[in-house]
């Protein structure tokens, strides 16, 4: 994992001092609320319903145990004892006091962390595949590139006041586990016909209002041109993107308006024109970064039969919550943050401390946050899985539901967020109650349920196999249901609305009806998504809006 040198550290320390000064000026009344707003957002500080919300950057989802302990301490000392992991691998706190935020940031700086550019109209945290570096299907580890981009994007002088936020995801596997096709820029490490590794570049994907799948604008970009090409994209966007309407300011709107072909032409033209002045690939610096991502000191082990002689409960957990590792004798282990009574993605201070201890004991002191709002121990010895499982069970992080219907993605919703039209956490609880039979969940197979409390789509509803979107109807909470969305691999798609929105109390029932239709039409072990694509929306519509339901 990347470790700061004196330059990285100085920048973060100076950022803390700068923000402390800005906060003091605001509290003293010499900085207006409006002017302060844009500055605090750049440090991840929102003003929410009940209190400020502070979003901390977890670059491409990597954490060391000592960082996790500091996150626990912040939850304990500055919040109400918990934090929430977001779909962009960051962690956010819902109850910090405004005047304590400079102290929180100073504490974070002691463990090489910060809130820089976790909000605001700038380049946000670069996200990646949670299985980076350990997936067998990976062409190359994307993380050194994520770090290289992170540094370039941090306080970039030209691109810190963009028309709107800008999100980049990088993956190194053909299977897209980072939702890169719904990012402003998606970068895929690919091999060309000459056998060289470079990037496929996608632009203009996004969720929220007007969700869109990104377009390929460069099939193969040599690695050394990465920053120069990103600068060309951002310069075109910065100059041409709309600034008159916040809802039309994302790059996806520009790409759509002028067509992907025209956008590609503008970028290529800018890229060529800037050839002499664009950032030059700094091979030595890249090598310096890359050395931080060498594999940990794996023991020479063999794969073993982990499940033999174990309980059904353990085997369920093993099957659902662990994944193949490219090194023999190891497994990757998901820590589910989706247990029935837990708001999806939430974790308490004591749980965070335990996670840090377990990471030290079982996974080289490293923890990853995932795009699906879970945690991951990437490098666990197979002969220690049973012991780890027992420890995880004690702290409620072993719910064996990864990839199932109850492994829901969910935004904080109307309980916390000032933007939300409707609550999402109580719905997660209601759905959990209705689908509490694990065997049934396993039979249903892979289903991604994603829920957002408003159009902004932080819960990625438009790419859920089942998507739920909170809408406001005359002050009441209603929910629009979509089916058939997907972020996976080359078959990313947007969900289709099934019909009129349903009332809060009918959502769990509606989901059950949708699942019933799936079970009725499913062929063999078909995934929900495939059944939907085969039979279309009509059978679902018929059942969901059948009279008995409307009466209910």
């Amino acid at each position, binding site marked *: 994992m990347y470790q700061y040198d004196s330059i990285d550290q100085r920048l973060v320390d100076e950022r803390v001092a700068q923000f402390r000064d800005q906060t003091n000026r605001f509290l003293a009344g010499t900085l207006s609320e409006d002017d302060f707003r844009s500055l605090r957002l750049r440090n991840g500080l929102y003003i929410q319903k009940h209190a400020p919300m502070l979003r901390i950057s977890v670059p491409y989802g990597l954490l060391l145990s000592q960082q996790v302990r500091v996150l626990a301490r912040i939850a304990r000392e500055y919040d109400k004892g918990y934090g929430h992991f977001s779909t962009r691998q960051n962690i956010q706190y819902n109850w910090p006091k405004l005047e304590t935020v400079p102290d929180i940031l100073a504490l974070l700086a002691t463990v090489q962390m910060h809130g820089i550019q976790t909000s605001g*109209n700038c380049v946000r945290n670069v996200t990646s595949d949670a299985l980076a570096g350990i997936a067998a299907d990976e062409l190359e580890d994307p993380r050194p590139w994520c770090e290289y981009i992170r540094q370039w994007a941090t306080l970039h*002088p030209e691109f810190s006041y963009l028309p709107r936020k800008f999100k980049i995801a990088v993956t190194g596997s053909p299977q897209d586990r980072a939702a890169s096709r719904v990012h402003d820029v998606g970068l895929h490490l690919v091999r060309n016909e000459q056998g060289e590794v470079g990037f496929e570049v996608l632009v203009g994907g996004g969720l929220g209002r007007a969700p869109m799948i990104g377009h390929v604008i460069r099939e193969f970009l040599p690695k050394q041109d990465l920053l120069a090409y990103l600068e060309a994209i951002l310069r075109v966007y910065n100059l041409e993107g709309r600034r008159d309407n916040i809802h039309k300011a994302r790059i996806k709107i520009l790409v759509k308006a002028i067509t992907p072909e025209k956008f590609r032409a503008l970028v290529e033209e800018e890229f060529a024109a800037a050839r002499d002045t664009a950032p030059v690939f700094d091979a030595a610096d890249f090598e310096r970064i890359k050395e931080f991502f060498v594999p940990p000191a794996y023991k020479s082990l063999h794969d073993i039969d982990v499940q033999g002689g174990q309980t059904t409960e353990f085997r369920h957990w093993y099957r659902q919550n662990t994944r193949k590792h490219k090194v023999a004798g190891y497994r990757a282990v998901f820590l589910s943050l989706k247990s029935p009574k837990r708001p999806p993605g939430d974790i308490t201070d004591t749980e965070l401390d335990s996670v840090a201890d377990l990471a030290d004991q079982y996974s080289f002191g490293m923890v990853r946050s995932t795009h699906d709002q879970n945690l991951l121990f990437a490098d666990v010895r197979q002969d220690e899985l049973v012991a780890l499982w027992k420890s995880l069970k004690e702290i409620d992080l072993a719910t064996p539901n990864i990839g199932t219907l109850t492994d829901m993605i969910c935004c904080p919703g109307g309980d916390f967020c000032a933007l939300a039209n409707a609550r999402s956490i109580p719905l997660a609880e209601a759905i959990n109650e209705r689908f509490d039979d694990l065997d049934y969940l396993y039979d249903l197979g892979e289903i991604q349920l994603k829920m957002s409390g408003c159009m902004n789509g932080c819960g990625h509803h438009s790419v859920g196999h089942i998507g739920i979107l909170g809408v406001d109807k005359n002050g009441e909470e209603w929910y629009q249901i979509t089916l058939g969305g997907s972020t996976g691999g080359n078959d990313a798609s947007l969900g289709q609305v099934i019909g009129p929105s349903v009332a809060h109390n009918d959502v769990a029932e509606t989901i059950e009806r949708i699942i019933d239709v799936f079970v009725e039409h499913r062929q063999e072990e078909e995934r929900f998504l495939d059944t939907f694509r085969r039979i279309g929306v009509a059978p679902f519509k018929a059942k969901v809006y059948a009279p008995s339901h409307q009466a209910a």
Partner: protein
Amino acid sequence: MRRLIKQREVVLDEWRYADEDPVGRERALILPFARWKAEREQWWLWDGRLGVRIGPTDPVAELKNDFTRVGLIAIEFGGMAEGRGYSQAALLRSRYKFTGELRAVGKIQRDQLFYLARCGFDTFELPEGSDLDVALTAFDDFSVAYQGAIDAAGVHVQRRAV
């Protein structure tokens, strides 16, 4: 007289905008971009110094042949969210090699000066009433940077250290 920050010092403005009366003794006048385009030939022979003020949608490439006559370019910022000026400045300095005075004018505030300066601006006309002495400290907010930047001469500064 108007005060502004020029190359990290608070100075009196020698320049007047075309809609300001009278043209000062300094005979240094800043014309709106549209007027410069329309009256370019007649102003070329005028004996004072000339500047051009551009808005966020004005294409800076159209000025690239005017630098022998135009010694100042003022770029307008309509508000903090207005970010096109950063790219306009970067283009003027790095692509078109403008070495004259590059001025940021409009709703800019102290906390943007670090970014603006690194895009090549060397003069900052803050809104009336701004505390310029406080603003001067903004250039030292950071002693390091990850990107190369463009100084007033169009020279690229090394990465990772200012």
